[in-house]
C-alpha cells in the first residue's frame, strides 16, 4: 500500500487527481440533482463531507474488530447513523436548505463516495490518514458541486449565491437549472477536465524529456 505518500499528498489527491466527481464519477446523483444553485452545492457538499469524515474515522477505528464478512453491513449502519445526525441537524438549524435539498440528505447514505472510501481507504489505514483522505475527498466533492452549481446558477438564473451577476438585460437560459442542464453542465465539465489532464500529462512528459536531454548533454 501507499504508506510512503505524505499526508499533504493524501489530502490533495481528492481535489484533482482522484476527484470523486471528475475522475472517479462517484456520487453523480446528488451532483446532478442539487446543483441548481451554488448555495445548494455548498450545502450538499458540506453535509456529505461531514458524513464522509465521521464515517471514515469511525470505520478506521473499528477496522480490526469487524469480521470481513459483515464489514459492508457495518459500514452501512455507521454511515446511516451519521446521515441521521446530519438530517436532523439540518432540519433544526437550516430548515430552508434542508427543504431545498429534500430527499437527497437522507440519500447521502447510498452515496457511493462514502462506501467507496470506507472500503478502499478507511478499512486499510489508520484513523489520522483516513480522516485526511476523507477531508480531501469531501473538499473535492464540495468544490465540484459548488462549481457546477455556480455555472448552472449564473447561466440559468443570472446570479451567483443569490446575487445578480449578469447584466440586467441578460436572458437566463432556463434550461440550465432544469434536469437537462445538469447533464449538459456535468458532461461538458468532464470533457474540460479531460482536456486539462491530457495537457498536464503532455507537459509533464515534455519536462521529463527536456530533463533527460539536459542530463545527456
Amino acid at each position, binding site marked *: 500500500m501507499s504508506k510512503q505518500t505524505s499526508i499533504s499528498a493524501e489530502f490533495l489527491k481528492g481535489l484533482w487527481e482522484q476527484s470523486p466527481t471528475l475522475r472517479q*464519477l*462517484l456520487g*453523480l*446523483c*446528488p451532483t*446532478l*440533482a442539487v446543483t441548481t444553485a451554488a448555495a445548494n452545492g455548498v450545502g450538499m457538499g458540506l453535509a456529505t463531507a461531514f458524513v464522509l469524515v465521521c464515517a471514515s474515522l469511525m470505520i478506521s477505528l473499528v477496522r480490526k474488530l469487524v469480521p470481513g464478512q459483515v464489514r*459492508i*453491513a457495518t459500514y*452501512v*449502519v455507521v454511515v*446511516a*447513523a451519521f*446521515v*441521521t445526525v446530519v*438530517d*436532523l441537524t439540518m432540519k433544526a438549524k437550516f430548515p430552508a436548505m434542508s427543504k431545498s435539498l429534500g*430527499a437527497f440528505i*437522507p*440519500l447521502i*447514505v*447510498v*452515496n*457511493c463516495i462514502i*462506501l467507496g472510501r470506507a472500503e478502499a481507504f478507511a478499512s486499510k489505514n489508520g484513523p489520522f490518514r483516513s480522516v485526511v483522505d476523507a477531508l480531501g475527498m469531501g473538499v473535492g466533492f464540495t468544490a465540484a458541486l459548488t462549481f457546477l452549481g455556480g455555472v448552472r446558477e449564473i447561466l440559468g438564473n443570472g446570479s451567483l449565491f443569490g446575487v445578480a451577476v449578469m447584466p440586467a438585460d441578460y436572458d437566463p437560459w432556463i*434550461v440550465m437549472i*432544469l*434536469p*437537462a*442542464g*445538469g*447533464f*449538459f453542465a*456535468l*458532461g*461538458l465539465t*468532464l*470533457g*474540460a477536465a*479531460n*482536456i486539462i489532464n*491530457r495537457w498536464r500529462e503532455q507537459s509533464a512528459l515534455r519536462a521529463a524529456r527536456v530533463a533527460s536531454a539536459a542530463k545527456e548533454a
Partner: protein
Amino acid sequence: MELFGIFITATLINNFVLSQFLGICPFVGVSGKLSSAVSMGMATTFVLTMAAMVTYLVQHFILLPLGIGFLQTVAFILVIAALVQFVEMVIKKVSTALYRALGIFLPLITTNCAIMGLCIFAAMKDLSFIACIVFAIGAGAGFTLALVLMAGIREELELASVPRALRGAGITLLTAGILALSFMGFAGMKF
C-alpha cells in the same frame, strides 16, 4: 384512475433517471449493451416493488407506532440491504436461468439510490399500500425505459467519432441531457 396517474407520473413525467436524478450510477455504468440494460431494468423494477412493500410495512407498523420515525434512514437501508440479499438467495434456488440473467446486477442494486429514494418519497407523500406498489412499478418501468433508450443510443454511438475528451462518461451525460430535454415534453401532461 388515480393509480394510473401515479404510474404515468412515475414513468414519464417524473422519470426517476431523467428528471429526478435517481439511479444515475447504473444508468451510466450498465447502459453500454442493450441486453444487460434490459436485465438491469427488470432486476431493479423487481427490487423496487419488493422494497416499496417492505418499507411501507416497516414505516407504518414499526417506526410510526413506536414513535421512532427518526430512525427511518437507518431502518430503510438495512431493510433494503437484507431484502436484496434475500432476493438473491431465492432467485438462486428457484431459477438458475433467472439468476444467470439478473444475478450480477443484484448486489449493485443495494447502493442504487433509486430504491432508497423511492422508499423515502413514498413515505414523504404518505401513499397507501396499493399506491406504493403502483408507484414502484411505474418508477421501475421509467428506469428501464431510460436505460434501454440510452443503451440503444450508445450502441450506435460506438460507431460515431466522438471528440477524444468527451469519450466515455462525457458523451453519455450529454446524450442523457438531450433525452432529458425530450422527456420534458411530458411535463405538460396532467392527471
